[in-house]
């Protein structure tokens, strides 16, 4: 009996499975998203302190969570590539990076837009904000490094190394930034302080965004696998011609 990862290790199997899963995940994400939006706008009250702007929370918080979760996924995939040489690990890491960067960017953006009415400024150099910003830079670094390297398999391993280094450094950054500036807003304990009337929409939106991410990630992985097939076919075409030429040249030299 094969384990799930073993079965998934075969890209052909993955293509088959993902093709079957993708519509379901996207559908579920869509339904949850619509109901989440309904709950967020029509079935939840304005905050007694923050007023209507609290509705930004329903997208800000899922994006912020995803920004960290996706980095965790990339780190896991990188580990899978470097240690187990899992054939799909790099496909997963490569596909996730731009998505993670996008969610991090959205967390920053919606946070800034929330900050203006709440704190009177778009940006403060607060601990949580700064560490999210640095997370965003790590994403940028991953993508920049990959795009600067031509050899695909080397690029995969090198970005994996960078991702793992980043994951060890991230907690240190989080902790150092906390230390450096203790003025930041005290982190509210979500489960106990957020009113149940807001907890439900937030939860629905969070699940919807997570499913949305997985749908996009699957699609991006499928695209990446196809891209690699195309590339391999192209180089094989060149290689075939070149091999013939090398043989011809050698033949000529021998005569």
């Amino acid at each position, binding site marked *: 009996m094969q384990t799930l990862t073993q079965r998934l290790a075969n890209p052909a199997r993955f293509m088959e499975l993902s093709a079957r899963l993708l519509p379901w995940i996207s559908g579920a994400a869509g339904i949850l998203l619509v109901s989440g939006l309904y709950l967020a706008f029509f079935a939840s009250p304005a905050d007694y302190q923050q007023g209507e702007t609290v509705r930004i929370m329903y997208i800000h918080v899922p994006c912020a969570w995803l920004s960290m979760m996706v980095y965790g996924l990339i780190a896991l995939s990188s580990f899978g590539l470097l240690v187990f040489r899992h054939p799909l690990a790099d496909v997963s890491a490569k596909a996730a990076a731009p998505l993670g960067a996008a969610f991090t960017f959205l967390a920053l953006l919606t946070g800034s837009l929330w900050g203006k009415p709440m704190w009177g400024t778009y940006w403060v*150099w607060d601990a949580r904000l700064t560490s999210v910003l640095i997370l965003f*830079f790590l994403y940028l*670094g991953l993508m920049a490094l990959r795009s*600067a390297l031509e050899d695909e398999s080397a690029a995969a391993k090198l970005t994996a190394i960078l991702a793992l280094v980043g994951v060890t450094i991230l907690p240190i950054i989080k902790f150092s930034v906390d230390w450096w500036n203790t003025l930041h807003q005290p982190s509210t304990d979500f489960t106990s302080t957020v009113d149940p009337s807001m907890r439900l929409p937030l939860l629905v939106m969070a699940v919807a965004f997570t499913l949305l991410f997985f749908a996009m990630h699957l699609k991006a992985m499928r695209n990446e696998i196809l891209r690699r097939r195309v590339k391999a076919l192209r180089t094989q075409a060149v290689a075939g011609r070149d091999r013939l030429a090398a043989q011809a040249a050698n033949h000529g030299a021998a005569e």
Partner: protein
Amino acid sequence: MKSFWALLSRDVRLAVREGGAIGTALGFFLVVVSLMPLGLGPDLNLLSRIAAGVLWIALLLAALLSLNRIFEADHEDGTLDVLATGPLPLELVTAAKSLAHWITTGIPLAIMAPVLGILLNLDLAAYPILVATTLAGTPAVSFLGAIGAALTMKTRRGGLLLALIVLPLYVPTLIFGISAVSAGAGPTGLAASFLILAAISLVAIVLGPLAAAAALKVQLQ
């Protein structure tokens, strides 16, 4: 002229391929700008006061980090020998390479300058001025930097040495660049700084390639 364009476009293409010019420029800019508050303290008032300085320092940094190999790489693989015996005088070779450097660092960073503005709380109305003055001032950075790059071509770790040589040359650009961007200047002060910046760049565009070509001729022996 055809040779000039060929060289220019080759250098731009290399910069894009080897360094991923624009994306890297954006990322670099973001990182430097956000490290400054970490270095100087998160006081927003202070930050918006020094925003102009941070912008120009990021520019100089980007120049320093990308300049030091512009001749060295061509020298090492023998390209410089062929360029020197080509139809283009060496002065135009250095001009084309400096121009390519400006296109691949000066322009992207000028376009990205407003990003800095947001992070440092800069006045929205100042953005067009910011971009314009950066565009007018950065040619000096590339063309003067080329002199340093040519002089340090054969010292294998020219980075710090290059910085030591060219940073003093950047002082006028830095002063007027900052005074053009900083808010307090007023329209006439702005116009004056802008013109002076442009003038410095023009001088650099003339002087830089000549001096760099002279340095290269010595280095090729």
